[in-house]
């Protein structure tokens, strides 16, 4: 190959760089969409006001949620197969009445703990995280972080692999076998049903209304509004009672903010003890409250810049190598 001039080398490098640059940066215009989270909604749960509706069998928020979402609850087939080759399946259809844990038929429940002589009741459900690993890591994009903030599962796409539950710091989504898309593909070999969880009454939120639990709470312990406003209210309340906030930092930020008069470390400790006494302590559906729980994607996101920039560096290396070999061949 003949000698190439510095000018033609530069010209070709720029041309090559433009092509690879287009390939690599073709997505930049979509990254700007992140600005939209300004209008997101959130909730503030004041644990000084929630008494867990102790005079009732079932707390009002729980019973209201069950009534509101009844039409969305799973209706599985009869004779559900095991998850071959495993000899098990997750079938809650004969335990629909359970109200003291999360199940596909119970999307919120109230935990009661005693810390420093104070009785604390904690309504639990999906936290609707800012950067939800459940939605990010779903292999079929069956979960969505909606523009309004709630994280919702599409029951028509979900295959029931339960990865969302594994990557959620609280293990919130609950699986029901014998329902959903997997039945139409290869039900014996792949898929496990559909995952169910609180969607913050997304239909009501979109219609400009409050979630059912907020509306129903007899003690006015759950507040609903813009996320920014809820966060502000939570910190103001925490300051007033010299209390603590949970949900702002956890999992990289959520849109559910709990305020408690006692520390969440102590609440978490009590919940851990309660969980260990559950019929199956390892089973999800009884979330604890790990303080400052990290986001599942923190480590991967830490190397994201390297993954995206490495090809730019190798493009330069390729340019230099090509130039040298061409020069070399020309000199021979």
């Amino acid at each position: 190959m003949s000698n190439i001039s510095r000018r033609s080398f530069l010209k070709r490098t720029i041309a090559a760089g433009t092509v690879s640059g287009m390939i690599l940066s073709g997505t930049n215009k979509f990254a700007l969409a992140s600005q939209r989270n300004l209008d997101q909604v959130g909730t503030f749960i004041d644990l000084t006001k929630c008494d867990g509706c102790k005079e009732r069998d079932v707390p009002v928020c729980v019973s209201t949620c069950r009534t509101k979402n009844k039409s969305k609850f799973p209706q599985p087939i009869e004779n559900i197969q095991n998850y071959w080759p495993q000899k098990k399946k997750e079938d809650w259809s004969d335990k629909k009445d359970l109200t003291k844990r999360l199940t596909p038929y119970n999307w919120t429940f109230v935990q009661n703990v005693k810390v420093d002589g104070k009785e604390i009741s904690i309504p639990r459900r999906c936290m609707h995280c800012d950067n939800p690993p459940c939605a990010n890591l779903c292999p079929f994009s069956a979960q969505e972080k909606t523009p309004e903030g709630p994280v919702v599962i599409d029951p028509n796409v979900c295959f029931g692999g339960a990865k969302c539950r594994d990557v959620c710091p609280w293990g919130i989504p609950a699986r029901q076998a014998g329902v959903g898309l997997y039945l139409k593909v290869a039900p014996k070999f792949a898929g496990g049903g559909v995952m169910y969880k609180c969607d913050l009454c997304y239909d009501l939120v979109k219609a400009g209304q409050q979630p059912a639990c907020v509306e129903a709470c007899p003690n006015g312990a759950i507040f609903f509004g813009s996320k920014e406003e809820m966060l502000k209210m939570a910190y103001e309340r925490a300051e007033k009672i010299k209390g603590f906030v949970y949900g702002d930092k956890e999992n990289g930020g959520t849109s559910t903010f709990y305020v408690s008069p006692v520390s969440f470390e102590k609440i978490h400790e009590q919940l851990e003890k309660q969980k260990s006494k559950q019929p199956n302590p390892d089973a999800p559906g009884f979330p604890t409250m790990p303080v400052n729980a990290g986001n599942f994607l923190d480590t991967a996101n830490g190397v994201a810049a390297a993954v995206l920039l490495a090809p730019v560096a190798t493009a330069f290396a390729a340019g230099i190598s090509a130039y040298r070999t061409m020069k070399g061949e020309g000199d021979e």
Partner: protein
Amino acid sequence: MANKEKITRHSPLVRLIHWSVVFSTFTLILSGMFQLPLAKRYFIDQIPGLTWSSNYRVTVMLHYIAALVLLSAVSFHVVYHLIRKEFNLLPRKGDLRESYLIIKSMFGFGEEPKSDKYLAEQRLAYVYMAFSFFLIIVTGIIKIIKNLPSVTLSDGFLDWTTNIHNLATFMIIFGIIAHLGAFVIKANWPLLPSMFTGKVDLEYVKHRHSKWYEKLQK
């Protein structure tokens, strides 16, 4: 055999890029499959040495690191050959017909047309693979960006991204099977050592790649 004259077909750099693509692609396929909840269900994580396979934390990182290698190799490949103006692998007019003639001759019908450095069917296979890798890389980059805390992309856009990423995975697996399947055919065996040693037999080149041989003589 040892005295056979050889000719250089792939430089060490080209071979390094090829094997970087091979190892990163296999790691990506494997770690990608393990993003589905199958390692635990099918007891793959019970196999000694594969206990990590059901740990999404490990498999996601593995996927990212292998992606770094693949992206780097692809970027190097594109830029290096563009600057050197080496377009031997790009399809030419009549490649479809020529491929048909080559395959026909393998079954003993007609004479094989003279080939350049690459066979017509290799040039077509290259375009197929390049397109598949383009799809998987672009959608993969979107998926990496989507995972960042400050980024929220629309659901419809992400549905497309996910589906294309999953489809491109199968396009690549099919491509690899076809690529390796080509070596079942005896006529292609002399090409095999060139991706390890860089060299092919001169006699083979004279016989089958006579157009390339003529160029090398100039």
